[in-house]
């Protein structure tokens, strides 16, 4: 456990047996255990009220667990003022509703808030602000007042404000919910660039197709517990598990498995161990090839 802080294979974050009860005896987390591999794109799945948001608040030190612990780079985190500051500098949290996060008069001012709290000097903060805005393609909004932005713009401002702190781990609560097609595509592209640059992403979502197509790992939550965590294609092929968590299988996975049964995939030239298609385009290519052969 100790001394492995710089081991690339060691998980960057771990949540062990986390318990949390909100006042009014609603148990939101009931011994939740989760591992966040370094550099992962981890999707946290589950029905409404399964504890996703509560989990994220714990992973960032906003809530204190009544049982269990959170570990960062193999070390249990502390809840002192200085420890929290360090923790929150390394683990950024983007809430679902940007109005819970964006408060300052203009976009640039709002994005400067996090970096200033990190104790950076003014010149460094200006660099961070420009960087955060550029990462989401909203440099042109810099001087706009925050209360006159559209919902999609506000979402991007909220994310830019967290990115400007350069966190190692980014927690995103329902990042694509309520965004239009263009908006979520732009957001995912930005996240992809971050991930490629080494940022670990943990996001909760109801969009199981997104989780299947985009995440490399998924964790399925149900009533405050993590039922299973693993590679997206394997976990999401477990029908009984999904049923239990109140989820459905991704459409793409269903279609790919049907292709395999129909002999278009996995049989003959391709072999049973071939990876299943993860994108619509990949599936279409297989279908077109298969139709020629049938």
């Amino acid at each position: 456990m100790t001394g492995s802080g710089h081991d690339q294979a060691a998980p960057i974050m771990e949540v062990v047996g986390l318990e949390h009860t909100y006042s009014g005896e609603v148990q939101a987390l009931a011994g939740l255990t989760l591992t966040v591999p370094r550099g992962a794109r981890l999707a946290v799945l589950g029905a409404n009220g399964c504890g996703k948001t509560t989990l994220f608040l714990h992973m960032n030190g906003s809530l204190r667990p009544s049982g269990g612990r959170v570990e960062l780079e193999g070390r249990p985190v502390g809840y002192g003022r200085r420890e929290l500051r360090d923790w929150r500098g390394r683990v950024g949290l983007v809430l679902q509703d940007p109005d819970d996060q964006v408060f300052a008069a203009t976009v640039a001012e709002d994005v400067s808030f996090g970096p200033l709290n990190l104790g950076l000097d003014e010149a460094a903060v200006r660099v961070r602000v420009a960087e955060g805005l550029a990462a989401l393609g909203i440099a042109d909004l810099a001087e706009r007042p925050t209360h006159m932005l559209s919902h999609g713009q506000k979402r991007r401002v909220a994310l830019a404000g967290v990115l400007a702190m350069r966190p190692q781990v980014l927690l995103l609560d329902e990042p694509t919910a309520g965004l239009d097609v263009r908006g979520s595509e732009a957001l995912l592209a930005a996240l992809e660039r971050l991930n490629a640059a080494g940022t670990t992403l943990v996001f909760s979502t109801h969009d199981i197709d997104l989780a299947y197509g985009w995440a490399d790992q998924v964790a399925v939550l149900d009533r405050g517990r993590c039922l299973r965590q693993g590679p997206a294609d394997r976990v999401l092929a477990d029908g009984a598990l999904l049923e239990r968590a109140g989820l459905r299988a991704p459409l793409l996975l269903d279609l790919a498995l049907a292709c395999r049964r129909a002999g278009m995939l996995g049989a003959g030239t391709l072999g049973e161990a071939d990876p299943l298609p993860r994108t619509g385009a990949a599936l279409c290519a297989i279908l077109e090839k298969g139709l020629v052969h049938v």
Partner: protein
Amino acid sequence: MADWGRMAPVDRYAWACRWRSYHPMEKTVLAAGLLVVALVLPPAGSAAPVMMAAFAATVIGAGVPVRAFLSVLAMPAGFLLAGLPALAVSIDTAAAFPLVITAEGLRQAVLVSARALAAMSCLALLILTTPVTDLVRLARSAGLPVAIADLAFLIHRLIFVFLERAEAGHHAQAARLGYVSFRASVRSLGMLGGGLLLRSLDRGRRLNYGLAARGYDGELRVLAPIMPVSCSRLAWAFVMIAGVALLSWEVGR
């Protein structure tokens, strides 16, 4: 029915006007200077020049639509109009009917109203050209305690969120016939108020999480935009104030 969002367009004009990037101090000096002229010099002479100067600065200078300027003045003008009879009427116990309108009383009423309207147009000049957040920042640099400035900042931000919620809630209730009758309206408004209170408390808690996640430690620090105070603009403001004062003095004699 109700358009709650309309409650906030004043700030919208301030953000969009040509004077947006000017230091709030310059605009405050101009508005305050004109206000002093309106309050110190006799209204018979000062009201019209002050009103015209405030109007010119707002509409011609800052490019705020005429309609916006007039609509800001409309509400206080309404109150003044409602109060006019009370000012004009005096009690004369010697007369057959004790309430009389004298020429002097009428003159007094008109002068008081003119002075009030002139003062209001100075305020309109300020709020239509200066976003509230700039004013809060100015007050903070002038010595307003940080905690109060931060609070004002957050309240201002949350007013817009609150109005959005109130409007959405109102539409949702109206869609379910919550305002078909007076009885239903009273009930619906009560429920809306109660619901908004709970949601506001919840929002406050979540905003706390959101700010804490970005390292909030008791002070809302942001990089304020650099707005240098322009000496030439300040000089122009003083010239304008002096001109208006002189004109008021001449007209009032």
